[in-house]
């Protein structure tokens, strides 16, 4: 493909060159932090350069050469971020892999990407790689960060991260020209280098390796850094999966370009506390995280005293009513302004503080459509939460809300330098600065996704509204029609359901059927609290999900959803007629969700065919056996009788429909 990279200001066209610049310009400003042994440890840009250099020279000593691929597997750790940069500095290509991938998926990616090196976090990942070693003949060296439990292993191909760096440092000590040589190697890199290969988890089929070019990546990051006025004084928390484009974009690309500090939490379980301690100014989270936070807050409020609970709900009501208007500068009665002011002091600011959002200047949500109520909740507290729409193939940003033009139902106008157009069938096509180079070793699918005039097909359906904002309808291929011709957009219905804290996941069916029916997962966290308060005992998710009282509660939620749908003329026909609560949680290990937690509806429909048949046959319960995969790859069988219920639907003025 032709390289049409715009000239880059300052001349840095690879990330390692940006690292040198940051080490020069922001020498003593923090680049990374990690909480270790209970204390935040930090590295300045100057120190980060030294770490990356030692690692790169150490890797070169191991035989790393231009073009080598290095797999990076683990949680967000400074050492793993340095590996990205060290590999790039030697002309190598980092390939981040989801750390919770089961061995099978990992084997596919590592084999397909032809990795020679792997840098991993701990024993768990080393074990997985050793297990796969005969299927990965190209993999030569495995480098691990955490030495725990690995002392007894055979170290012919295994290396501790620290020992690789030590090798690099002693090479520098022996011969100081090693630094100059490394910098020479680094300067050979250019805009046409492959910066990273990101494997998309894919809601359909086998994952694809998206190649991101270095010059393009930096051009895209520069545009967005300017858009949100990010600078070296910003702070971000790195907690998203390394292999997801969002993490690479935010915590690597943008951090390198803007020079801001990225903090790594102590562990997944301490995330909320770490978030609060760091107080990021720039925050990015998929809707699910915002949902979970709201669920946590709701649960904790249930335990609060009655007075506090009333105060909380009262002022949240005030915020819901006038919060957004006040923030958007629209006229609001004085009384409400005063109330909002008091609420801010009593509820909103303390709540934001608990959540770690006190210092947030810019927050984004993306990855999936966010429920409008959820979006409004955070906005009304006074948080600058915006939506963006993007794709791995675009190197993330296609559209985003500019400050002051924020609406829940759109994803904003196109970003600077991004060209968007809507194809015949409503599919969104784009050209943008960060556009991918192609799929790695897969020209067939690269051709498939490109239109004749060089645009990339997103697979999403959408349209521009009168203000030039893009509205996403759904995955183009998911939007369908009921048998009576009613428009049916499953995502829309699912998002409405997922706004209830008790509902974790929803999968709607209805295309070419007589009515809409849904599978649900309850939120174990929220429902178990509820069960405790209502004296309901249970032994497992399966038992709780099958409890009739849980069914009653969920049924109530669905009735409310139907009421809501009935009020929207174009959606009223798509009310939910029947539902069931699945006997197991949908899980990426079973292939039901992608690693980024998106529903793979095709696969779910196949897997639970008997349940779908039962939804449409009028049965009130159905027996099902499901194979499940445990974390270590072993398989087991889950058997259950799943109850199916009818739900009340509401008539609409336009389209008469009898309540059942």
């Amino acid at each position, binding site marked *: 493909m032709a390289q049409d990279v715009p000239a880059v200001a300052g001349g840095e066209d690879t990330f390692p060159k940006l690292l040198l610049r940051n080490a020069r310009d922001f020498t003593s400003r923090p680049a990374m932090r990690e909480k270790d*042994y*209970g204390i935040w440890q930090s590295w300045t840009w100057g120190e980060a350069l030294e770490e990356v250099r030692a690692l790169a020279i150490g890797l070169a000593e191991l035989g790393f050469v231009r073009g080598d691929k290095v797999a990076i597997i683990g949680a967000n750790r400074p050492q793993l971020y340095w590996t990205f940069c060290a590999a790039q500095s030697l002309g190598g290509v980092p390939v981040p892999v989801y750390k919770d991938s089961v061995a099978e998926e990992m084997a596919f990616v590592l084999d397909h990407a032809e990795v020679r090196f792997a840098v991993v976090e701990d024993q768990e990942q080393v074990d997985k790689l050793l297990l796969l070693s005969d299927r990965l003949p190209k993999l030569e060296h495995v480098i691990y960060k955490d030495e725990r439990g690995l002392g007894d292993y055979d170290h012919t191909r295994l290396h501790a991260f620290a020992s690789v760096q030590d090798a690099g440092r002693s090479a520098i000590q022996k011969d100081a020209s090693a630094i100059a040589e490394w910098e020479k190697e680094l300067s050979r890199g250019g805009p046409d280098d492959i910066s990273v290969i990101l494997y998309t988890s894919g809601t359909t089929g086998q994952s694809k390796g998206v190649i991101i070019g270095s010059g393009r990546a930096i051009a895209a990051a520069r545009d967005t850094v300017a858009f949100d006025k990010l600078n070296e004084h910003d702070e971000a928390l790195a907690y998203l999966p390394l292999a997801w484009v969002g993490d690479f974009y935010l915590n690597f690309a943008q951090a390198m370009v803007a020079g801001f500090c990225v903090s790594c939490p102590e562990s997944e*379980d301490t995330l909320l506390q770490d978030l609060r301690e760091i107080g990021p100014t720039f925050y990015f989270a998929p809707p699910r995280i915002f949902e979970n936070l709201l669920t946590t807050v709701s649960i904790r409020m249930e335990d609060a005293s009655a007075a506090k609970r009333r105060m909380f709900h009262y002022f949240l009501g005030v915020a819901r009513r006038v919060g957004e208007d006040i923030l958007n500068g629209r006229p609001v009665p004085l009384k409400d302004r005063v109330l909002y002011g008091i609420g801010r002091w009593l509820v909103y600011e303390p709540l934001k503080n608990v959540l770690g959002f006190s210092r947030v200047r810019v927050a984004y949500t993306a990855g999936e459509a966010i429920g409008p109520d959820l979006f409004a909740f955070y906005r009304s507290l006074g948080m600058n939460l915006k939506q963006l729409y993007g794709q791995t193939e675009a190197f993330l940003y296609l559209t985003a809300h500019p400050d002051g033009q924020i609406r829940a139902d759109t994803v904003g106008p196109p970003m600077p330098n991004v060209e968007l157009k809507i194809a015949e069938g409503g599919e969104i096509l784009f050209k943008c600065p960060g556009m991918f180079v192609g799929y790695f070793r897969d020209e067939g699918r690269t051709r498939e996704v490109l239109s004749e005039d060089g645009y990339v097909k997103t697979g999403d359906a959408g349209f521009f509204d009168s203000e030039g904002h893009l509205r996403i309808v759904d995955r183009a291929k998911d939007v369908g029609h009921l048998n009576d011709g009613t428009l049916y957009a499953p995502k829309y219905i699912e998002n409405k359901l997922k706004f209830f804290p008790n509902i974790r996941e929803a999968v709607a069916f209805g295309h070419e059927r007589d009515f809409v029916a849904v599978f649900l997962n309850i939120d174990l966290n929220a429902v178990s609290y509820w069960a405790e308060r209502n004296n309901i005992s249970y032994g497992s998710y399966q038992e709780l999900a099958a409890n009739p009282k849980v069914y009653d509660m969920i049924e109530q939620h669905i009735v409310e959803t139907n009421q809501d749908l009935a009020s929207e003329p174009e959606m009223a026909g798509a009310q939910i007629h029947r539902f069931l609560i699945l006997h197991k949680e949908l899980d990426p290990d079973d292939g039901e969700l992608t690693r980024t937690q998106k529903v793979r509806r095709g696969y779910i429909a196949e897997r639970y065919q008997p349940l779908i048949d039962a939804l449409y046959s009028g049965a009130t319960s159905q027996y099902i056996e499901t194979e499940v995969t445990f974390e270590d790859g072993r398989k087991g069988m889950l058997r259950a009788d799943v109850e199916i219920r009818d739900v009340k639907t509401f008539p609409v003025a336009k389209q008469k429909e009898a309540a059942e």
Partner: protein
Amino acid sequence: MRAPATEAANATETGKTVLSAENISLTFGGLKALRDVSFDVKKGEIRAIIGPNGAGKTSMLNCINGFYHPQEGTITFKGVARRRARPDRIARQGIARTFQNVALFKGMSTLDNIMTGRLTKMHTNFLLQAIYWGPNQREEIAHREVCERIIDFLEIEHIRNTPVGRLPYGLQKRVELARALAMEPDLLLLDEPMAGMNLEEKQDMCRFILDTNHQLGTTIVLIEHDMGVVMDLSDRVAVLDYGNLIADGRPDDVQSDQRVIDAYLGVSHQ
């Protein structure tokens, strides 16, 4: 993984004896809890004590850490024989333990509970500690670091500041192990470390026990009812029944011993 582990096991066979109990008898009034029990623990091994309910397993541990004083017999720890000694003295000698029913300070945080494990290693007195200045400050920081390493080792960062009483049972057990490890003991006594845990928690606990043994080189004596766990983890197993030592040896040998099978399954008395 397996190969080095058996090597280590072989090494412990020839390891030095850390603790030996000779002809221990313990009676409560007319009840004979232990009758003439002798066994030893070698440096670096995982030694299991098993037996049916009421066989005298916990009594044996209580004798080892000085909580009970046997009427007969001697216990020799690191070459020093003792008859009567207070538990706190024994703790200072390097024996730590956990309890069958968790015995933590429920109102204190995980970190504070673990810090109490450092008590035997603290040198300044509590008045000076209250001031938190100079040498006391340095001492506390050093102790805190040890505790943080243990927190990291047992993966309980997320509950560092949570009051222990609010934690689920499995985690409380882990905190108790952490406190025992904070003493940096030479000999660690675990009384049913896996009782009341689900499969996943048991697996975690097994890994922590093995890691403690391998990486910190701690000698471990454990009582456990889960036979699978005992047979997998331990280097040698002692079997008690009605206060008598009925078998002692490698897990495989003990498992096939007729007397052990009888004790567990019961025999008909003709």
